[in-house]
């Protein structure tokens, strides 16, 4: 027999070390407060001789640790919706600022770029950054006004900027609905989602060429849906925020209206073109909103 107290201690040490590694899924502060207690319970629950964490316990530690790290605390569904819509608006603004900046940089490379055009783009970026700062600071009404001015001011040309219109409608709704005196701040960290959305949009255009030519191209939007649904297990605000972006993408591919001042559309395009993308993006938005709502309701329960 190789068993005995020393063997049991050795098994336990190995198991404890492995559980400690898994516990790194939790934030440092949580581990400092509760880590030893959770480890004690894990070791209490482990059968003698076990050296490897069980699959069930490992999955639970990783899921709960990730939720503790990134997920919101318990709150009413209305609060989750309000925060999620703010995040959606913030990312839409971030996305538009990023694309305007890229456009401006490309324009700088063109020899003899008119200063007036550069000023227009610069003004657009300034409006956008001011609106984002106001939203991060919880100034919803100011953000709504700045976004409205950005749409109305002669700093956009081409088609109507539907990302901004969507953000404006969301913010206007929030300004009217939110009567609480306290300001609701929105973390600027959510802006890291913006480059991802731009990348997904770029990939979508590359794959579809603007139109669906075969059933295989439908895979892309469904991959998008799947990727963001994964976020549902951690944070219900994510699918609602992504649904805002999806609505903006749906409007972009469907409605072709010139922007308010100096705008223009591609010749030959009718103002409304109902394409397969319209239905796909619409369906994705509905599914994401439903998932977000159900998860938000669940979050309210103890």
């Amino acid at each position, binding site marked *: 027999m190789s068993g005995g107290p020393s063997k049991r201690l050795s098994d336990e040490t190995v198991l404890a070390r492995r559980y400690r590694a898994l516990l790194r899924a939790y934030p440092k502060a949580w581990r400092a407060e*509760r880590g*030893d*207690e*959770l*480890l*004690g*319970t*894990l*070791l*209490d*629950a482990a059968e003698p001789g076990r050296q490897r964490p069980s699959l*069930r*316990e490992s*999955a*639970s*530690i990783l*899921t*709960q*640790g990730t*939720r*503790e790290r990134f997920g919101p*605390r*318990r709150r*009413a569904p209305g609060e989750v919706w309000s925060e999620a819509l703010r995040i959606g608006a913030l990312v839409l603004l971030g996305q538009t600022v990023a694309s305007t900046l890229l456009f401006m940089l490309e324009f700088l490379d063109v020899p003899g770029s008119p200063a007036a055009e550069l000023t227009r783009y610069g003004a657009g970026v300034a409006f956008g950054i001011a609106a984002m700062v106001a939203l991060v600071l919880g100034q919803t009404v100011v953000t709504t006004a700045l976004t409205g001015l950005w749409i109305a001011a002669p700093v956009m040309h081409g088609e109507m900027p539907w990302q901004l219109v969507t953000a404006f409608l969301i913010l206007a709704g929030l300004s009217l609905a939110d009567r609480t005196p306290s300001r609701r701040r929105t973390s600027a960290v959510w802006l890291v989602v913006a480059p991802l959305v731009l990348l997904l949009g770029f990939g979508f255009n590359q794959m579809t060429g603007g139109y669906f030519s075969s059933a295989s191209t439908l895979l892309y939007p469904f991959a998008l849906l799947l990727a963001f649904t994964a976020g549902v297990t951690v944070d219900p605000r994510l699918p609602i925020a992504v649904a805002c972006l999806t609505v903006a993408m749906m409007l972009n591919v469907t409605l072709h209206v010139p922007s308010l001042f100096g705008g223009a559309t591609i010749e030959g395009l009718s103002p409304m073109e109902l394409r397969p993308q319209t239905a796909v993006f619409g369906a994705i938005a509905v599914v994401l909103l439903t998932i977000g709502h159900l998860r938000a309701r*669940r979050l*309210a*329960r*103890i």
Partner: protein
Amino acid sequence: MTIQLRSPSYFVLAALLDGALHGYVIIKRVEALSDGAVRLAAGSLYAVLDRLADAGLVEVVNEEIVNGRARRYYALTADGGTALQDEAARLAAAAKVVTNATARRRAINTAVSPA
């Protein structure tokens, strides 16, 4: 906010009815009380305990080290006891409309009769 208890939270509160317990014993007690229907992994137990503590339904009443393992003992608060009794009454009423024909007819008649 109205307190709505999920199944694991309900059984964790029920496990604490007879006194303060630490994590592992809560897991075993919940499994026994739910007839094996609720089997909590340790990570899930602490998520439930965090939610219950945040809502003021349980509290830590003692801490100790046993065989080198840290243990905290959790107990029901007065609010926790009330929330548990309310949920039990709600579940009993819901069960009654299935098991008791008279209660079912009374509920239907109350719902359809004019105020």
